[in-house]
């Protein structure tokens, strides 16, 4: 007699229920509200009359300008995290003694033990024009250090807060490539650089993509880090959405902005992904292994 078994998807039910309740349902509500309107001075939303008017209101030059500024911060932050986090992850996965890995991973996670707002405000104290970093610079004869409320400070804060999100997937990706494959590559005559470009990097590519998405997507919606350190220079589109929900009490327009933002973030990630795919095309072409030519050997 066959034992009765639960279907395989049963294991995924808790996650689906969770997502449906706490993610899909709220997003659906926001989507629905975005077709509504603000019914009066003291109301936040009404949906008895649905229209696309709120979306027309969203598409203003201010929204566009703020969105572009946000995207620059997000793209630059993602690129910096990749450039800085990539070598660290590679070193942790490949070069560092395996017995250190647990400790190194724990160290990467240490910042998450403190609330990110507290950590970001900590940077504000350090970077203040009369903060200790500035005083230290002046003590050794350098000019006063004044980068708080500049784009430099924004990027510093962004990299600081998001670097672990880049390092962790990259570490996993580099780690999974495994020593045997690198060894085989060297045995077959590839030098270290060639092994990296043709074996490690292509196999780690999914991890790199995940790392970039993990940084880019939350960064597009983050309006705390940038504002705390960048002030006016850290104006993010998330603030405009929050302003509609909170200050203007116009949930319909805020919802339309949120939905627009989701769509544009997905599109921009797709465009950036497409560009990367095109950009790495020569690499893939060069790396292509042709398996259908054994005739030469036998001939």
């Amino acid at each position, binding site marked *: 007699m066959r034992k009765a078994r639960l279907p395989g998807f049963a294991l995924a039910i808790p996650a689906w229920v969770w997502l449906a309740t706490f993610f899909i349902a709220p997003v659906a509500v926001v989507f629905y509200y975005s077709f509504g309107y603000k019914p009066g*001075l*003291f109301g936040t939303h009404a949906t008895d009359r649905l229209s696309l008017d709120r979306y027309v209101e969203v598409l203003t030059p201010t929204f566009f300008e703020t969105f572009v*500024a946000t995207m620059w911060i997000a793209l630059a932050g993602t690129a910096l995290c990749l450039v800085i986090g990539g070598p660290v992850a590679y070193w942790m996965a490949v070069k560092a003694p395996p017995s250190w890995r647990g400790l190194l991973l724990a160290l990467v996670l240490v910042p998450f033990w403190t609330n990110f707002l507290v950590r970001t405000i900590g940077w504000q104290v350090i970077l203040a024009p009369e*903060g200790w970093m500035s005083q230290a610079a002046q003590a050794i004869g350098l000019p006063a250090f004044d980068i708080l*409320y500049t784009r430099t400070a924004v990027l510093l804060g962004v990299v600081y807060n998001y670097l672990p999100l880049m390092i962790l997937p990259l570490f996993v990706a580099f780690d999974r490539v495994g020593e045997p494959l690198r060894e085989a590559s060297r045995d077959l005559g590839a030098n270290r650089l060639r092994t990296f470009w043709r074996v490690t990097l292509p196999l780690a590519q999914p991890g790199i993509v995940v790392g970039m998405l993990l940084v880019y997507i939350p960064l597009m919606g983050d309006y705390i880090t940038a504002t705390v350190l960048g002030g006016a220079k850290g*104006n993010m589109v998330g603030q405009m959405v929050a*302003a509609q929900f909170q200050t203007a009490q116009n949930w319909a327009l805020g919802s339309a902005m949120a939905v627009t933002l989701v769509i544009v973030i997905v599109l921009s990630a797709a465009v950036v992904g497409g560009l990367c795919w095109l950009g790495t095309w020569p690499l893939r072409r060069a790396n292509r292994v042709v398996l259908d030519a054994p005739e030469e050997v036998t001939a």
Partner: protein
Amino acid sequence: MPANDDVRILASRASTPLVRRELSRRGFLAFAAGTGTTMFLAACTTPGGAPAPAATGGALENALSIYTWGDYDAPEVLEGFTADLGPRITLDSYGSNEEMIAKLVAAKGTSGYDIIVPTGVFIPQLIENGLLYKLNRDLIPNIEHVDEAYLGRVWDPDNEYSICKAWGTTGFVYDKTVITRELKTWSDFLDAAKNEASGRTAVLDDPVEITGIYYWANGIDWDTTDPAEIDAAEKYLLEELAPHIAAFDSYPGGAAIPQATHVLMQAWNGDARIGIMESPDPDRWQWVLGSPATELWMDNWAISASAPHPEAAHAFLNYVLDPEWAIAQIDYIGYHTGAKNIEAMAREAGLELLDMVFFTPEQLATMQDGEINEAQARNVEIWNKIKAAAGA
């Protein structure tokens, strides 16, 4: 025997309230035990949440839930209430009126909060949405200790729903080591922002505070809904002020003033005062009350329409208005609480920088009440535009 439910006892006058409360609490408990199940079932059948029962000065409930601004009451006042009258206090805080209102509206009468502390301009909205409890003023005799100047404001002319909790005003603070001339008015503020303080100026992160600078400087009604005036404000602020703004900061007293991050900062008086007191070099800062006009905002004690503990809520309002606590409250929050003779008491207690808390009648006359009106959406739009322009 007269048909009369009164109980006659022999007791000192001072102990009467306590005895009355204890007696009625026992009565209440007996009643509750008998009807508890019924009440529970009844509660289940009204998903909208029943409105609070009328407060009649009966027994205090054993709990009180306060939903207020962060760090807004001296701990000894809250502890004193529990120690003296019994109800345990649960404190929850919000960062904006909108957040509080959104929570009350979304909870549809099940928020569980008794006391809320809305800013005056939001009170008409709360009343219109049926979110406020009509106060039983007989239970709050200590309202007599509130200065009449801070009662009967435009948002609640007869104080049917609210009583002044604290009020403040808007001005600015500048660094005398960088701006060596004397600044006195909003026009001076704008001029300094464009010159000595360019790129080192912060304004409050609030639409009506930013547009306010222009209206107050130019003698225009702060609550204007005239499109021509709003357009002019937008044009000026966007072209003349925005390029010089370094940050939008509603609480520069927390970090920006002590750390000397900017040289010119728009600020609320109590926050600026804290910032200057925390500064390692307080003498470099000069506080200026905005002129020729500025605002007067007021946060107000109010009770939620669905308050589960209305008796305790009324008792708390009466307790907190007792002159005994006036100094503790003003010392803790740094804002005028509206209590009578508070200025004399504060001077006697030796509190610092009192010219940033108390104002002359002439200054008070220049302070305008705000209101939420049809200009709200435009103000938010201008605010977003200024932010985009300042960040460019």
